């Protein structure tokens, strides 16, 4: 491991100033991803600015304004928070579906959003990777890709975003608040992650050197009937091969409101806007759910070994929406 400098920040502006827009420096939250990448040599920062002591550790909720989650709130704290569990169950479920107890105790909400893909080529310095070394190529396309993207990928990169939490946040219209050298700013989470295109190494729309300070969720009664289902290759402690965050409000046999996002299928959490449009105002039925899923997945461009994800996502959408409809009917 390369030697690096270490500073601890005590206030938000101070943290941004300490980083000083240095492209070789990194903010350190829980370190559950960054430190691993440093050990593997994928990240080689000259300096770390530790933001764990910043006063960003609160979760606030009001029925009018919704939820505000400080960036240094740990995953464990978020998942255990009673108002989160009551008003945004999909979010609590998504957080609990990720990693392990020890990791959730360390990992922070801000860091979770900025974690890097777990693509086996990205994390291995002996292999080419356009995300790590622009222009070196994407061996996953011809190689091992059975858990890679089917939506929104490009010929330059087919990696997926690994977060579970971000999938639920995306479905629930989260907004990311940040602090930069130019002052505070906000971005809808759906705009945080850049399209892959031919620049897979450029991952977010945050200004250079910006620090995520909070994530807010609007008040949304529909979120109270929400759910996160994750499928992975073992019962725990693995990244998703497909996941769905959904919220559903029904009136009689009609869908009044629906939120739907997919995980593990794209370089970012995938908001299923096409499916949402088809479902809203339509019937509550497995056939309608399947048709909406099919419409969303019509854009899928599977590789030779990940076509199963299309079937999996369709089945998951039908299963989760059916469960939510039954829950809403009770």
């Amino acid at each position: 491991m390369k030697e690096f400098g270490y500073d601890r920040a005590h206030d938000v502006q101070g943290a941004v100033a300490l980083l000083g827009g240095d492209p070789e420096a990194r903010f350190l939250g829980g370190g559950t991803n960054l430190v691993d990448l440093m050990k593997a040599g994928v990240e080689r920062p000259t300096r770390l600015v530790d933001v764990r002591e910043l006063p960003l550790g609160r979760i606030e909720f009001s029925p009018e304004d919704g939820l505000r989650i400080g960036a240094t709130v740990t995953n464990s704290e978020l998942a255990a928070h009673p108002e989160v569990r009551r008003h945004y169950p999909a979010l609590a479920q998504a957080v609990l579906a990720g990693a392990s107890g020890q990791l959730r105790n360390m990992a922070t909400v801000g860091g979770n959003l900025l974690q890097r893909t777990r693509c086996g080529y990205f994390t291995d310095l002996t292999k080419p990777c356009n995300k790590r070394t622009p222009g070196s190529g994407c061996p996953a396309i011809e190689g091992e890709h059975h858990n890679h993207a089917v939506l929104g990928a490009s010929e330059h990169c087919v990696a997926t975003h690994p977060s579970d939490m971000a999938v639920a946040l995306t479905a629930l219209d989260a907004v990311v608040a940040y602090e930069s050298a130019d002052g505070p700013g906000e971005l809808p989470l759906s705009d945080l992650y850049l399209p892959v295109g031919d620049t897979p190494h450029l991952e977010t729309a945050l200004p250079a050197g910006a620090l995520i300070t909070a994530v807010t969720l609007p008040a949304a009664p529909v979120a109270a009937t929400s759910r996160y289902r994750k499928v992975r290759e073992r019962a725990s402690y693995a990244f998703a091969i497909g996941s769905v965050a959904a919220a559903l409000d029904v009136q009689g046999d009609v869908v009044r409101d629906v939120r739907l996002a997919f995980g593990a299928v794209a370089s970012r959490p995938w908001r299923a806007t096409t499916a949402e449009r088809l479902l809203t105002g339509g019937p509550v039925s497995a056939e309608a759910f399947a048709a909406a899923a099919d419409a969303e997945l019509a854009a899928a461009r599977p590789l030779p070994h990940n076509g199963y994800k299309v079937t999996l996502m369709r089945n998951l959408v039908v299963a989760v929406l059916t469960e939510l409809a039954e829950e809403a009917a009770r």
Partner: protein
Amino acid sequence: MTTTTPTAAASRAVGTAHTRVEGLAKVTGAARYAGEVPHPELAHGWLVLATVARGRVRSVEEAPVLDMPGVLAVLHHGNAPRLEAGYMGVFGPPDPVLQLFQHDRVPYVGWPVALVVAETPEQAREAAETLTVRYDAEPHDVAFFAGHSGMYTPEGAEESRGDLESELASSAVVVDAEYTTPEEHHSSMEPHAAIARWDGGRLEVVDSNQGSRFVADELAKLFSLDAESVRVRSEHVGGGFGSKGTRPHQVSAAMAATVLHRPVRVVLTRRQMFALVGYRSPTVQRVRLGADHDGRLRAVDHVSECLTSTVHEFVERAADFGHPLYDANAHHTASRVVRLDVPTPTWMRAPGEAPGSFALESALDELAEKCGIDPIELRVRNEPSVGPLTGLPFSSRNLLACFEEGARRFGWADRDPRPGVRREGRWLLGTGTAASAFPTLSAPSTAAVTAEADGTFTVRITAADIGTGSRTALTQIAADALGTTPGRIRMRIADSDFGAAIMAGGSMGTRSWAWAITVAARALRERLVPGVALPPEGITERSDTSAAVGALTEKERHAFGAQFAEVAVDVGTGEVRVRRMLGIFAAGRIVNPLTARGQFVGGMTWGLSMALHEEATRDQASGGHVGADLAGYHFAAHADVPAIEADWVDDPDPDDPVGIKGIGEIGVVGAAAAVANAVWHATGVRHRNLPIRPDRVLNAVGGADGA
């Protein structure tokens, strides 16, 4: 038939549950593992591994690295001391990967090309990762598939009896199916680690291995030393599973200590372990079973294909698994192999038996389905009276007792044989069974037992406790042989100075070591005269079982078992969850029920993990692995492992001088087949390719492409 954990008389240690004698030291951290034994002046070595799959090292650009902080040396083929290459090891010619830095050829990704030594591990690692090695790469072939043109049958890897084709032709029912298992890795919790230093003209190595005498003898040969000039100790070992023989970490540490005249430690990283310590070859297996309508076998044909490296032949003998199991008019088995540009595979817990049992015991289940016979009844109908291939009598054989007791406890009698008819919410439920067998081997060992002046006893034997509890089991054996209590025994193991002994492998360690200890202890008891004081140095008796092992009557000696599993499958998501497993074993005399149960349950957990999770993926373009770490290489997590029950039936063999059979591996055998058979029973779909991943379950249902 009496069953279920017989309890021995209180006066005897053997058969009584005993916690590990080193348990307190382990849970308090007092027990030191090789990588954490402190030593003054210790330098740290870091291996640099090849990144091309075939070619030559053109240059190792060491000069810039030698200027880095703390760097002491860069050893490579241009400057490394010469090693002896022409010796013969105990298991044949040694793996050439031990010939560290002797030439510029690179036969696979992960071949060691340099060792960087520095004052701290961080400095060594940073320098190793900075070191530029240039290669002249050549085209490589790492593609393993059935019928590869390079496939050959090694000498002694094929056996037959009877006229196979004619028996198949006259069979009313034939199963002809292909099964595959992927590349699997041992991934012991403790990585390989060694400290080497010269002390008074002796090479002293503190190591993590499965046989300190084996490693010492091999290091002596490699470095052209007298056997007495090398001492290897391996006090505590965090898992081995076949991967901890002589490996590049010991050789490189010894080489660097020789060059630098300083103690040197080399510890492998998890990622390096995927390339440097062996693994289980993938297999493609074709099984053909021919039977009459009533399920009586006429023909058993099992042909397995595996891979090895271009530099060394190791064959995963999967086809041998069925040799002791079933009667048939004709048998044919062959284990074939192809040389590819990949690291050399090695023994991995239940080598041959683990993949072989998946194929054969799945095929038996398919035959039961085709004949409309219960899978256990099918095995009853094909129970042999003597070895099916050898005609030799069995030393003891209680396979059917295992099935009988297992079926009773598992509730097998109530099973509806129809597949795909049990549903619980989104889950389809099913149950499956499979037979298990593992050879009972013995190997010569020596032991020394000392009656101390204070009334205690000291046993010295180059045994290894790789986490199995063998140290405790041997303490119990010694206590009974000496007519004393375990608390009065000092069990000293894993020091090559204690003399020749078999390594921990082949499930023969405890049997072979117990034999040597018992012989020495009996001799010692005869010399102890009640009321006569012992000299201050005590009295010592030594044993060597070479002659006795050689005189063992020729018989079919095996442990047997019956495996049961219940699974739940969501065919909409492809998820498979094992709900319960039961294993009943016939494995001779059980020395320590507590640790024995741990071995059986641990083995069954391996089988579950093999069935559903484990798979190393090789990137065809680079020739190296993708995701060579424990995030990429999935094994069963706690949440995947349900209530697993293991127990045993009586399996006495009065004619056997030891009465102990091995228990370290048989738990793995058949477990994956039981799970796969249960998945068929749940869904009606046969999964013949491991692991049974969600995508495979989904594709089998939906007919989508991929796999």
